[in-house]
């Protein structure tokens, strides 16, 4: 394999007494869909936050696309092609869906020190934004104010915003959180469509989805990676069953 898209080395982060990331080392290959699973409070969101720059690790390094990004601010990582979606929906509630996504496009189209041109007439922002909305099946909802969209639509919008930045890698924090079975199915289809063309680090509790989508899976418990491998290996691992999947889990 060529140089991995992302290399995480000996990453550590604690909050007071809680060690949320414990000496974590992980590679994500280019084009790979790497899933991170683990029980509540295992440190999955904390990991994503460190990768995206929202949190600074206590120690360790993060390399992305051949560069050390450990101390880079979030916006600079986004500029280098690292995009994230949030477990708890994080959008611009007063803007329309299209404005939300167009703003993400704008963020990657040079600086925003433009004071006079009507942003809603800029085809170079609106067209890619519409394409990203179409990618997640929201094209018909483009003009709806985000606040009035359903939870499932918010999750789709999250993905569209991440895609609109034209990323080299996606960090997705539980894109199916709180979704019904039908909506989840739609999201799995969206992720399937992205798989192969995007490098993805996926955090997800929905085991069906994870085992269907992932190329590799890492299991996180109390901030430690207790297992990492192909889906079959993870499924077969007794330790994983014991620590996380539980006896009656049928995977």
């Amino acid at each position, binding site marked *: 394999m060529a140089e991995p898209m992302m290399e995480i080395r000996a990453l550590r982060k604690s909050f007071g007494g809680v060690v949320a990331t414990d000496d974590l080392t992980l590679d994500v290959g280019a084009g790979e869909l790497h899933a991170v699973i683990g029980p509540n409070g295992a440190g999955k969101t904390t990991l994503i936050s460190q990768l*995206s*720059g*929202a949190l600074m690790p206590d120690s360790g390094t993060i390399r992305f696309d051949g560069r050390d990004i450990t101390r880079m*601010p*979030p*916006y*600079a990582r*986004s*500029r280098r092609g690292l*995009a*994230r979606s*949030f477990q708890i929906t*994080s*959008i*611009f*509630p*007063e*803007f329309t869906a299209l*404005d939300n996504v*167009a*703003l*993400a496009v*704008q*963020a*990657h189209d040079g600086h*925003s*020190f*433009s*004071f*006079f*041109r*009507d*942003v*809603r007439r*800029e085809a170079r922002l609106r067209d890619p934004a519409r394409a990203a909305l179409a990618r997640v099946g929201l094209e018909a909802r483009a003009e709806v104010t985000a606040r009035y969209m359903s939870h499932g639509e918010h999750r789709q919008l999250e993905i569209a*915003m991440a895609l609109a*930045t034209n990323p080299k890698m996606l960090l997705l924090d539980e894109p199916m959180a709180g979704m019904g079975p039908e909506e989840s199915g739609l999201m799995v289809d969206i992720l399937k469509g992205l798989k192969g063309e995007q490098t993805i680090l996926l955090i997800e509790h929905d085991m069906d989805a994870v085992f269907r989508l992932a190329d590799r899976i890492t299991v996180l418990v109390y901030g430690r990676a207790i297992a990492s491998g192909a889906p079959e290996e993870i499924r077969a691992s007794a330790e994983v069953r014991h620590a996380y999947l539980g006896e009656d889990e049928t995977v």
Partner: protein
Amino acid sequence: MALLNARNLVVLATFALLALAPAYAAWVETPFYLDLGRRMMILAIGALSLNLIMGFGGMISFGHAVYIGIGAYTVGICAFHEVTSGFVQWPLALAISAAVALVFGVISLRTRGVYFIMITLALAQMTFYLGISLDQYGGDDGLTVYAPSDFAGLIDVDDDLSFYYVVFVLLALCLWFSQRLIRSRFGMVLQGARQNEGRMEAIGVPVFRYKLTAFVIAGTMAGLAGALLANHTDFVNPEMAHWTRSGDLIIMVLLGGMGSIAGPIVGAAAFLLLEELLSGVTEYWQVIFGPFLILVVLYARGGILGFLSRKDGGDG
């Protein structure tokens, strides 16, 4: 989006009234109305500028009157030293307001929420006391501006009527500028940062520099209001920068409607009108004004314009 919704009608009506006020003042032979209208428009420019950062950028500055004070003092001190050319005074007033806003912005924009309010307030009070300590410029008694800004005959600031329309045109320009700004790429970043700053950084925008720029633009516009105010009252004093004046600006913005670009103009007009009417009724007019404000905040969240647009929606 109807162009002639209730909201736009109120804005248009306000402008129409302001345009006709001089004629009415002449007709009823009450020059005071001319004075009142001009004061409304000058403070409207100040409130408009505050709304850019407060309403759209979510930066609740409790020291915005400082820039009005600085603009006014620049004109006053220039005149004191016999530099009366408006071509020098006014650009200088804008430049100094911008520079101070830049410094204060760099300091205060590192904080959020209540801390931001407190720091802007503290910086404002510092500036206020600096004004008081300027003994050679009258200290807390202030400074009379004996000569109006001189524009070499191009515009006559000394003539009440022509100065009135100078202010009128400047207000219209500031409104137009704000409108363009809010709908531009810059405006989207500003509003996005208010709604969700973390997300803004996550999609790749270094928010600080945009907020700082907005802060400087707002301070500069308020500096213009200050330069106008010095010519309006022919007098400057530290009181212009007092925190209660900053509070007045906040009230004007809330009264007119934070979410709308033209709201502060309606808010400033309503504020001065109410002050005029109520202080005619009783010396303790604040006793009536206070509860009225509470009602507005409770029942008309978006201020006067927000209240009107509840029925028919609309933008701007």
